[in-house]
């Protein structure tokens, strides 16, 4: 059977790739620590000898357009380009065989997941964390499976659904004849308000509450949150974290970093099955 060997969740803001403005030394130093936390995820991934990285990310009207905007989509192509702000920075192999197995298995489990065999590029919700994780991983043998969840354009896939999705993914992998060692990553958050007049706020109290629940393994409690609360606290992307955590079903969760500058609550969490 395939095995989920570990997981993590972390931010995907383009700022984490490269700062677009001047900042003070404290900010720059904390950003370096944040990037190092993502690289530590990569080093952990290597220690666990993972060969597939399943990434739950949120489309930002970049891969999809309002002409066709799915709630869930798994990428089943051979490989893909990864961009930041539309500028391509890397090309990665895709684990299309396992992606196909997930697609068929999830539809059988009554998840109406779409698929894509071709894509022009994936942008920062996938690229930013994968870029830093791979820096820590240090090898190119790893294959990726991008899995899109609509957490950013209302109406959106519920957190309860994300929780059940993670459980279904785990069930399908455990029933697989493949020998893959899968590492699961959720990307986004925590509190931030991009593209809105609320930008510049961070709901640290909400972030800390979420972190406490993660540390206690109360993933199903987090799955009860609705989008009014999530939007009000800038935690609209939490569904990707829930899907990843639910897939891992962690026996323990370690917070590698929480940092709350003026525009974003940044957190990196590590899930151990």
């Amino acid at each position: 059977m395939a095995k989920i060997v570990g997981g993590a969740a972390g931010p995907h803001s383009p700022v984490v790739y490269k700062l677009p403005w001047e900042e003070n030394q404290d900010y720059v130093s904390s950003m370096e620590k944040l990037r190092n936390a993502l690289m530590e995820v990569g080093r952990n991934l290597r220690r666990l000898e993972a060969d597939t990285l399943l990434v739950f990310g949120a489309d930002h009207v970049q891969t999809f357009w309002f002409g066709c905007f799915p709630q869930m989509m798994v990428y089943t192509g051979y490989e893909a380009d990864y961009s930041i702000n539309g500028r391509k920075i890397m090309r990665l192999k895709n684990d299309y065989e396992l992606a196909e197995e997930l697609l068929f298995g999830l539809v059988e489990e009554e998840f109406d997941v779409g698929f894509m065999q071709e894509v022009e590029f994936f942008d920062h919700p996938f690229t930013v964390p994968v870029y830093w994780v791979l820096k820590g991983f240090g090898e190119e043998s790893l294959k990726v499976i991008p899995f899109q969840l609509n957490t950013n354009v209302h109406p959106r896939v519920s957190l309860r659904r994300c929780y059940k999705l993670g459980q279904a993914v785990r069930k399908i992998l455990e029933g697989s004849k493949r020998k893959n060692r899968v590492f699961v990553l959720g990307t986004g958050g925590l509190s931030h308000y991009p593209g809105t007049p609320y930008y510049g706020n961070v709901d640290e109290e909400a972030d800390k509450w979420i972190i406490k629940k993660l540390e206690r393994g109360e993933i199903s409690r987090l799955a009860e949150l609705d989008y009014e609360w999530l939007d009000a606290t800038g935690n609209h992307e939490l569904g990707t974290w829930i899907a990843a955590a639910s897939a891992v079903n962690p026996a323990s969760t370690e917070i590698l970093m929480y940092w709350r500058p003026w525009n974003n609550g940044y957190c990196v969490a590590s899930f151990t099955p």
Partner: protein
Amino acid sequence: MTIIFRYPPLKHIRLHKLGYHVFRDPAVRERFKKDPEAVMEEFGLTEEEKRLVLSRDGVKMYDLGIQPYIIFALLWQAFGEWPSREQVAKLGYGRETPYREMPQD
């Protein structure tokens, strides 16, 4: 309670489409930089929508119903116009967030 990352109003589909293509298509982006009027005309924007795009005012765009990720794409990602710490208040960002209650443990 408020939904912030809302459904895109159909009436803005032309402006939304412009933002999507300006972000992801370098050729459209370059043409837009050189001659925004011509590109907005191609996408069928109304005169009011053209004025809104040319205002580069993300807060006004949001208040008139433009989807946040189109604003994000059109201003920030395509052209690098990120509001810095100093610009946030000056440009009208940092608005008080909707009221929420912390869940019970």
